[in-house]
């Protein structure tokens, strides 16, 4: 068991680091490794991955929430939709054809990946900040939901250590974002996976939140969504301490390191890394759907 534990532990460090850097649960690493390499029952693999999500979220957010990269107000507000979505998903399990859902999910991710690559870099965003007042008001008028973001005081700023810039940002399309988060929560509740892969593109593409803030905020969100369903998995006996234990320890170490990297990484590199992982996850989902 010791050798096995050490192997799980090592893989989990990697999953935790990537997960907290990218705002994902790390399930995209943990579940395939446990089922394909260790031939573990899918039920126990998903139970373990839920623990991995909680660990990634807490260890990652512990640092970034204090450093103000995480937007706590956005996370709290969007959590309304993701948790209700997760509950909806759990109640709807079995109603839809899972293979169809996997294919659909995979396709949405692939399209998001393509869209995200086209987004303008951080530098361009910084250059537009003198006009931020106009941008904010315009977003409020045109997006319809920007006014909601005004009322909720969601707009914010963060210090980007990699660029040495103070980056203010205006949150747009809050209503659309809320709807997308509900869908993301429902899908992850239905399929038991994909906690962050839809949340980050929703914040980045629809709500115009900077990439680093999107991944850090997603990181806080996924822990809340996971907690809602983790109790079900625990009570059902899907969380085996001898497997989830070493995974959790590895994730905690990796995620703590990942949150340090998030402070220093350049946003354009973070975006490319995220899109690469998105492509891998999209392929995993589509393969599950068709095969």
């Amino acid at each position, binding site marked *: *068991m*010791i*050798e*096995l534990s050490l192997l799980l532990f090592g893989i989990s460090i990697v999953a935790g680091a990537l997960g907290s850097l990218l705002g994902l649960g790390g399930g995209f690493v943990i579940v395939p490794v446990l089922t394909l390499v*260790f*031939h*573990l*029952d899918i039920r126990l693999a998903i139970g373990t991955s839920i623990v991995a999500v*909680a*660990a990634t979220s*807490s*260890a990652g*957010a*512990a*640092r970034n*929430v*204090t450093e*103000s990269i995480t937007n*706590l*107000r956005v996370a*709290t507000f969007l*959590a*309304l939709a993701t*948790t*209700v979505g997760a*509950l909806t998903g*759990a109640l709807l399990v079995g109603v839809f054809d899972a293979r169809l859902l996997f294919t659909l999910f995979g396709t949405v991710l692939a399209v998001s990946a393509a869209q995200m690559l086209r987004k303008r870099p951080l530098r361009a965003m910084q250059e537009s900040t003198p006009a931020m*007042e106009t*941008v*904010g008001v315009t977003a409020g008028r045109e997006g319809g939901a920007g006014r909601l973001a*005004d009322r*909720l005081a*969601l*707009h*914010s*700023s963060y210090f980007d250590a990699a660029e040495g810039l103070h980056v203010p*940002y*205006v949150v747009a399309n809050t209503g659309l974002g809320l709807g997308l988060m509900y869908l993301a929560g429902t899908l992850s509740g239905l399929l038991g996976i994909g906690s962050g892969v839809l949340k980050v593109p929703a914040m980045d593409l629809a709500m115009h939140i900077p990439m680093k803030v999107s991944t850090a905020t997603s990181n*806080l969100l996924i*822990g*809340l969504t*996971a*907690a809602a*369903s*983790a*109790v*079900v998995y625990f*009570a*059902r*006996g899907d*969380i*085996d*301490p*001898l*497997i*989830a*234990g070493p995974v*959790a*320890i590895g994730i*905690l170490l990796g995620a703590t390191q990942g949150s340090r990297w998030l402070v220093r990484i350049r946003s354009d590199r973070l975006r490319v890394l995220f899109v690469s992982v998105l492509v891998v996850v999209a392929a995993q989902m589509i393969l599950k759907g068709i095969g």
Partner: protein
Amino acid sequence: MATPAGGYGALTPPSPRGVRAAVGKTLRGGVSLAAALLLTGYVVGVVTEPGVFGSHAVEQAHLAARARFPHSLAAMWDGIGHGSGEAIIVAGILVLILTPVAGLTTSAVAFARRRDWLFTVVSAAVLSVILGSFALGWLSS
């Protein structure tokens, strides 16, 4: 809608420093407690149950066949009472699962202290959805 006081040029951090610091502190506390329990459980397990924790000849078969491990609070407390490493690990896992919820509770209280009633209500609503899911999950299993 009027521009917020101070204008967009003076965008404030997402939440007052005090709120963020409190949430960060709670999350760090949960993570440290969970890590301590997980490691203690491992050490206890390796020392007292080398058959389960130490042997590697049986690991594959063992993993496939393992079905009996604590997965209720009663079984966990019972196991901890008997000094079972496995049960201590389960406690660590539960602390980990509850840590984000503790963070949310902290932010609800911190928002209330600052009389930010809108976000106190939003935090409390999220909290009640999660607690509702807990109850549903527990009842349905």
